[in-house]
């Protein structure tokens, strides 16, 4: 997998409450993306274009297990590059099909708006402006397979392991009349 996109820069410790505030967790998935980073960078979501890339500092996505990576993907962002990525956030990114790589030195190597060329086979990132190439931390093929499938749920569906998705409903019918 190779991709290329315009970068948006964020700092260290971008947490899950900034990515996906609690009240937003209850909104439909397509609504959630509209609220990403609204506390720290209001209006940013409206500027993101499909295919853009986030470049962040240390410990991106620290905090909760909520589906923040799906919301980030919903903004149009296709890839997160960070000095380090919180373990739970990285797992959610893989499972929601949001490409992500830990790349030491990436924060200093990019100015916002630079184009990043990312290679998930060689695990490299190139800055198209400066021509600088950085080496990322590799992860195994089975995780890349999940990403390529668009996430773990599509993969489980393809394996026939899940019941069909049903609309939400109220209580199950009762056995007796009342």
């Amino acid at each position: 997998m190779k991709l290329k996109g315009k970068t948006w820069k964020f700092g260290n410790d971008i947490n899950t409450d900034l990515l996906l505030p609690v009240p937003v967790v209850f909104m439909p998935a397509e609504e959630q993306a509209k609220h990403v980073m609204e506390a720290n960078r209001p209006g940013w979501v409206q500027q993101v274009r499909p295919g853009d890339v986030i470049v962040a500092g240390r410990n991106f996505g620290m905090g909760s297990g909520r589906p923040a990576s799906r919301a980030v993907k919903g903004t149009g962002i296709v890839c997160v590059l960070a000095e380090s990525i919180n373990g739970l956030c990285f797992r959610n990114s893989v499972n929601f099909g949001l490409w992500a790589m830990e790349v030491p030195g990436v924060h200093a190597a990019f100015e916002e708006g630079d184009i990043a060329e990312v290679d998930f086979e060689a695990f490299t990132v190139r800055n198209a402006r400066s021509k600088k190439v950085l080496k990322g931390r590799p992860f195994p093929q089975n995780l890349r397979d999940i990403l390529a499938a668009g996430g773990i749920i599509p993969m489980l569906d393809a394996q026939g392991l899940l019941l069909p998705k049903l609309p939400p409903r109220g209580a199950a019918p009762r056995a007796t009349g009342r």
Partner: protein
Amino acid sequence: MGMTMIEKILARSAGVSKVSPGEVVTVDVETAVVIDLNFLPHDWREPKKVWSPDKCVVIFDHIAPASDERSAILHTTGRDFVRNQKIKRFHDVGPDQGIAHQLVADFGYALPGTVLVCVDSHTCSGGAFNCAARGIGGPELIYVLATGKTWFQVGTTVRYEFHGALPPVLNSKDLIIHIANVYGDHATQNVEYAGPGVANMSLNARRTLSTMSAEISAEFATFEADELCQEYLRSRTDRPFEPQFPDPDASYDDVRTIDLSALEPLVAYPDTIVKNGRPVREAAGERVDQAFIGSCANGTLDDLEVAARIVKGRRVDSRVRFIVTPGSQAIYREALRRGYIADLMEAGAVVTASTCGACAGLSAGALAPGERCITASTRNYKGRMGSQEAEIFLASPATVAATALRGTITDPREFI
């Protein structure tokens, strides 16, 4: 070269003799905890067959009892799942209700030497029982329910060796703020809590520390299962377990010694606990609108006891809302029997049913813009408890109770 505590647990769960940092290992899951938030309509997909219903626990905690139609539907979906998949260990709204990580402790669900997973980031709580317990997010939990397996990237480990005992009124909350102050976050690292001082820590105290390890971004946080821990578990479960101890020649990123007796009450300032704590005496005088005790970190009987002791016979400041949420209904009942609840309520506290509640801004204690809260819960990120323009100070239950009395941040030692 030997293995650290977490490496031993992961190797055992992967069925291999050795794992090393950097490796991605596939492990067998011993316990999967499903909570009400898993059943959100846009997130939930039910497996055709849960790999082992006997290894599954279902707990309604984030919004329990349901507060609106939306959360009521989470619960009906969850009850369908429990019925369809014939899951026996089910904590619905009722006498066995409680916060998932508290119930995992109360019912002995976290078994030493095994892997326990749940969507929620504070699942690391179960590390107090020598369990590789970790939050894995919603989609991965569905994968686990379908297959019984998950993967972990093995991180490097930092070992903490505790000596001495915490002074009276101090809590593991003060200890974690100290660790976060001195050493910063532990992203990509595991932490191993050990040393002779652990013997002076109750299981509740250990669990507060393992739970709060999510706030220093630890991958796993584990204790050894000493005799106290093993006896406790044997009184609550007849499932077998094999505690895992670190090898003497294990390799660590760092080994750090902390003298527990030298600590003083600390408070973390708003937005993070990392490098953001100060001695309570230096923060004294900061005004608050609300004081909260609860959550999976500090809703234990010990926490209610110390809070009741501090406020007994006194009055909560009239400008402060003092909200207390026991970690489980069983803790609530025991606190009632012991008179703690009466002491708290007579002083002016509002005591709620056991739920995650105010800790995550979900119910019973959310904050408005410009408001300030001091909390003995888990997390103080911007927006965590309601408004993104509210400020959240984080401290021990004793500090929160003392602050509720005065209306400004107060050192609890003044009241003991």
